[in-house]
C-alpha cells in the first residue's frame, strides 16, 4: 500500500477518536459547577507546589493539601464541585479544588516504588535544590523540585532538563546493551533494553515526552537490527501519530507539542550546524523550534535562555551518568544550580 493510504487511514481513525473525546468532554461538562463524587485511581505523577499537591484522576485534575501524601495508583473517592476551564474550543480542563478525599486502596506499582526509593536516597544524601534536580534529571520526577527553583528553571527556559526524554532513553538503552552485549546474544540484549525502557517510562510517569522518546528509540533499534537506514523524521511521525491515535487530546498537551517540536528541530537543524561542544547544538536547534510554542503558552521566550541552555547542556550528561553516585553528582548539580539561579 502507498504511504498516502496509510496516512489517510490514520487521519480517519484520528478524527473518529477525536470526535469520541469531544463527546466525552460534553458528557463530563454536564456536571460542571455541580457537586460530584468520583471513584478512580491516580493516573499521573504527583506534583508538589508550595502547600499543595496535584494529580490526575482520569480526565480530572485534583488539587489538595500537601498532607496526607498520595501516590500514583491510589484508588480514591473524591467529592467536590467540578470546575471547567476552557483552554480552546476543543479542549477543556476539569478540576476539583480542595475536594473531600478518601483513600480506598493504596497504589502499589513496583516501578514507581523503585523510583521513590531512589528519590528518597537522593534526599538523604544531598541538600535542596540539588536533590530535587538530580531526581528530575535522572527520573523525570518534578515532585521534589523546590518552588523557587522551579520558577528559575521556567524563567530561563531550562525546565526541559527535568523532563525525562530522548537522552534518558539513549542512556538506559545504552547501559543495558553495554552491560549485556558480551553475555547475551544481540537480539536478547536488545529485548532487555526495550523492557528497561518500558520500565523507565512507567517510572517517569508515562508523560508525553518519554513515551515519544521510548517509541522512537525502540523503532530506531529495531530498524537498525533489520538493516534499514534511520530516518529520524519518519520515526518521529510514527511515534507522534501512534500517540495521537491512542489519545487524541495529546494534541493540546504542551509537553507533547514541545517534545515533538524539539525533536523535529534537532533532526532538521543539527546536521546543518558546525561542530559545537556536547549538547550545545541540540540545545540550540530545539530552542529554535519550541520558540513559537513557548511564546504562545507562556507569553515569553527569553533570549538568554539560549545562553543558559548552552552553558548547562554539557553538564547534564554527567549528572545522568552519576545518578547512581549522588555524592559525585553534587559538583555538576551545584554548577547547574548556580548558573540557573544567576540568570533566573
Amino acid at each position, binding site marked *: 500500500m502507498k504511504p498516502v493510504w496509510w496516512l489517510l487511514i490514520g487521519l480517519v481513525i484520528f478524527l473518529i477518536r477525536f470526535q469520541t473525546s469531544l463527546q466525552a468532554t460534553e458528557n463530563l461538562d454536564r456536571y460542571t459547577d455541580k457537586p460530584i463524587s468520583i471513584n478512580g485511581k491516580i493516573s499521573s505523577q504527583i506534583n508538589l507546589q508550595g502547600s499543595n499537591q496535584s494529580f490526575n484522576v482520569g480526565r480530572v485534575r485534583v488539587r489538595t493539601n500537601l*498532607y*496526607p501524601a498520595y501516590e500514583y495508583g491510589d484508588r480514591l473517592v473524591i467529592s467536590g464541585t467540578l470546575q471547567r476551564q476552557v483552554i480552546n474550543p476543543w479542549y477543556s480542563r476539569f478540576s476539583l479544588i480542595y475536594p473531600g478525599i478518601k483513600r480506598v486502596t493504596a497504589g502499589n506499582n513496583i516501578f514507581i516504588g523503585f523510583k521513590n526509593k531512589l528519590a528518597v536516597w537522593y534526599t538523604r544524601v544531598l541538600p*535542596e535544590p540539588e536533590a530535587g534536580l538530580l531526581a528530575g534529571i535522572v527520573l523525570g520526577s518534578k515532585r521534589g523540585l523546590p518552588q523557587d527553583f522551579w520558577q528559575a528553571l521556567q524563567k530561563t527556559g531550562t525546565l526541559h532538563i527535568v523532563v525525562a526524554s530522548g537522552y534518558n532513553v539513549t542512556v538506559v538503552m545504552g547501559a543495558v546493551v553495554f552491560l549485556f552485549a558480551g553475555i547475551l546474544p544481540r537480539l536478547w540484549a536488545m529485548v532487555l533494553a526495550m523492557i528497561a525502557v518500558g520500565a523507565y517510562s512507567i517510572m517517569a510517569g508515562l508523560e508525553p515526552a518519554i513515551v515519544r522518546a521510548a517509541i522512537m528509540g525502540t523503532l530506531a533499534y529495531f530498524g537498525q537490527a533489520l538493516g534499514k537506514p534511520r530516518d529520524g523524521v519518519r520515526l518521529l511521525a510514527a511515534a507522534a501519530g501512534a500517540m495521537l491515535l491512542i489519545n487524541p487530546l495529546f494534541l493540546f498537551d504542551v509537553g507533547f507539542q514541545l517534545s515533538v517540536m524539539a525533536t523535529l528541530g534537532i533532526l532538521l537543524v543539527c546536521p546543518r550546524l558546525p561542530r559545537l561542544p556536547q549538547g550545545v547544538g541540540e540545545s540550540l536547534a530545539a530552542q529554535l523550534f519550541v520558540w513559537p510554542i513557548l511564546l504562545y503558552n507562556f507569553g515569553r521566550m527569553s533570549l538568554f535562555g539560549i545562553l543558559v541552555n548552552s552553558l548547562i547542556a554539557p553538564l547534564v550528561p554527567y549528572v545522568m551518568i552519576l545518578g547512581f553516585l549522588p555524592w559525585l553528582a553534587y559538583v555538576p548539580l551545584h554548577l547547574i544550580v548556580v548558573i540557573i539561579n544567576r540568570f533566573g
Partner: protein
Amino acid sequence: MLLAWQQWPKSQLKLVFCSVGQGDATLIIWKDQQILVDGGPNNRVLDCLGRHLPFWDRELELVIASHAEADHITGLIEVVRRYEVKRFLAVNEANDTAEYRALLEAINQRGVKVKELVQGDAVLAGPVKLTWLWPEKPGRGVLGAKTSLNRFSQVILASFGEFDWLLTGDIDTKIEWQLVTSGTLPEVEVLKVAHHGSKYSSSQEFLDTVSPELAVIEVGKNSFGHPTEETLGRLEQVKAQIKRTDEAGDVVIISDGDHWRVE
C-alpha cells in the same frame, strides 16, 4: 574542594529566619551544630537548610516544633525524613490533622527521640544556650483540645555570649502578660515577633519589657492581614528595626558573642 572551602562552617553564630511563606522556620548555626525551630507551611525550609548548611552535613542536632500547627510543622515532616535528627522537642499537645499525623509517622519511622521541655528547662549546644520560658507545665496530650494550640507555644530565650534573642512561636497577649509578670523576661537584641505580626500578639507591655533592637516578622502571603498595622505601630513605639521574611527573604544575623549584625 572550592565548594568545601566556601561552605566550611564558621565559629561565629549564624541565626537565620528562613523565608518560607506564611509560617515560621528559624535556624541557629554554630560551627557544625544546627538547631531548627519550626519548619514552615511547606517544604521551603529544605531550601533554607540547603542554602545555609554545608552540603555534606546531613545531621541536625536539635529540632523543635514550637507547637503543632500546620504553618509550623509541615516542613518538619520532610526534614525528619531527610536529615538525621538527634533530638526532637515538642509540646505534648497534639493536633488531629494530617500534617501532625504525618510528622508523628516520620518521627517513629526514623526512630527520633522526642522530649518535652517546660519553663525552667535549658539546653546547651556548644556556647549557645536555650532557656525555656513557656509552656508552664507539660501538655496533657489531648487530641483536639479546646484551648488554642498557640497558647502552648514553646517560648525560648536563646543566648550566645552577650547576644540574646527570643523565639515566641504564636503566643498571644495573654501568655505575654504571664511572661511579663513572671519577671523572667530580659531585654533582648532580637525578637521573633509572635504569630506573624498578629494584632492579638506583641502587646506594648511585652515589647517594652523585651525592648528589641531588631524585630523579625516571619510572614508570607496570607488572608489574616499579617503583619497588622497595630503590631507594626507598637514595634515602632519601642524603636525596633523591623525585618520581614516576605520582603527581605532569609533574614541572616551574624554574631561573635559581643557584636551582631544583619547580613
